C-alpha cells in the first residue's frame, strides 16, 4: 500500500513538475520563477490538503490548496525559510496539515503498528515452521526401518544380485 502510494506519488510529482515548469515558462519565461515554483512545490508536497485529505496541497486543485500554495509562494518571496512556513501552517491547521505525521504519542500506533504486525507475522511464521518440522521429524522416524526389516532388505538385495549374476 505504502509502496503503491510512493509510486503513484512520484508519478504525480513528475507530472506536476512537468506541468508547472511548462506553465511557468508560459507565464513568465524567467529562470528565477521556475526556481521559485520548484521551491513552492517542494514545500507544498509536505502539506496536506484539508479538503481532499489524501492529497498534498501540491497535488490538489481544491480552492483551499490553491490559496495555501499562494501563501507558501508569498512567504518564500518574503524570505521565510521552509521551517517557518511549515510552522505557520501548523499553527493554523494543526499537525494534521503535515503530510508526514510527526512521531508523538498519538501517532505511535501509526508509526510502529506496521512493525508490530510484522513481528507478529514473523512469530506466527516461525511457530508454523517449527511445528511442521516436528511433524516431519516424527514421520521420518516412523519411516526408519527396524533392524529386522533392514536384515530382510539386505537379504533380498543379496538374493536379487545373485539372480542377476546367474
Amino acid at each position, binding site marked *: 500500500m505504502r509502496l503503491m502510494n510512493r509510486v503513484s506519488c512520484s508519478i504525480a510529482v513528475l507530472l506536476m513538475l512537468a506541468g508547472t515548469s511548462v506553465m511557468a515558462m508560459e507565464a513568465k519565461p524567467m529562470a528565477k520563477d521556475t526556481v521559485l515554483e520548484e521551491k513552492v512545490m517542494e514545500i507544498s508536497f509536505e502539506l496536506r490538503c*484539508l*479538503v481532499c*485529505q489524501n492529497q498534498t496541497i501540491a497535488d490538489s486543485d481544491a*480552492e*483551499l490548496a490553491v*490559496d*495555501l500554495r499562494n*501563501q507558501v509562494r508569498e512567504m518564500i518571496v518574503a524570505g521565510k525559510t521552509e521551517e517557518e512556513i511549515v510552522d505557520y501552517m*501548523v*499553527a*493554523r*491547521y*494543526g*499537525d*494534521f496539515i503535515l503530510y508526514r505525521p510527526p512521531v508523538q504519542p498519538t501517532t505511535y500506533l501509526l508509526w510502529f503498528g506496521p512493525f508490530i504486525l510484522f513481528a507478529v507475522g514473523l512469530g506466527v511464521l516461525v511457530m508454523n515452521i517449527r511445528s511442521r518440522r516436528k511433524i516431519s521429524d516424527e514421520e521420518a522416524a516412523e519411516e526408519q526401518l527396524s533392524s529386522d526389516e533392514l536384515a530382510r532388505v539386505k537379504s533380498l538385495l543379496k538374493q536379487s544380485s545373485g539372480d542377476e549374476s546367474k
Partner: protein
Amino acid sequence: MVKYLIPLVLFVVLAGFLFAGLGLKPREVPSPFIGKAAPDFNLPQLMQPEKSISRDELLGKVYLLNVWASWCVTCKYEHPLLMELKNARLVEVYGLNYKDKREDARLVLRRTGDPYVVNAYDEEGRVGIDYGVTGTPETFLIDKNGTVVHKVIGALTPDILRNCILPLVEQLKMADRQNQISREAVEACV
C-alpha cells in the same frame, strides 16, 4: 476446530474496525486554536465598507464567529437556525464573509434576513487562513478574553446548539475566565 475459528475471529475484528471507521468524521480536524487566543484581524465590514471590524473590538463579549459565503450551500441550510438564534437573543453572532463577492453576500442577507450583528468581509480569505478555515460553514465560540472555546466544522444543528454551544455560552457569560466553566459543559461538546 480452532483452525476454522481463526479466520472467523480475524473477520470479526476487521469488520469491527471497518464499522468503527464508518462513524469517523475525517473533516473534523481538531483545531489548534481551542483554548488559545482567536487570531487578530481587521477587516472592512460587509454592509458598510467604510467601517472596519477587528477582533479587539469584540473583547468582553461572548460571541459566535460564523464563517460563511453566499456560494456555500450548507450555509443556506444553516441560515434559519442563525435567524432563530438572533430572534431569541441567546448569543450574538458575528459573521466572517469568506471569499465572497460583496454584492452576492448582501443579496443573500437582504433576501433571507441578516442574522449577524456585523459581518467582516474577508474577500481574499486571508483571515480564513489565519483561523485555519478549511471550508464553510465553520463556527467559533469565543469568550470575553478573545479565547477560542469551541469550533464547529460544518453546519450548526439544533442539537449542537442545545447540548453544547448554549450551555457553554451561559457559563462563559457568567465567568471571567475560560477555566471557570464546568467540565460537563465542555464534555457535552465532544
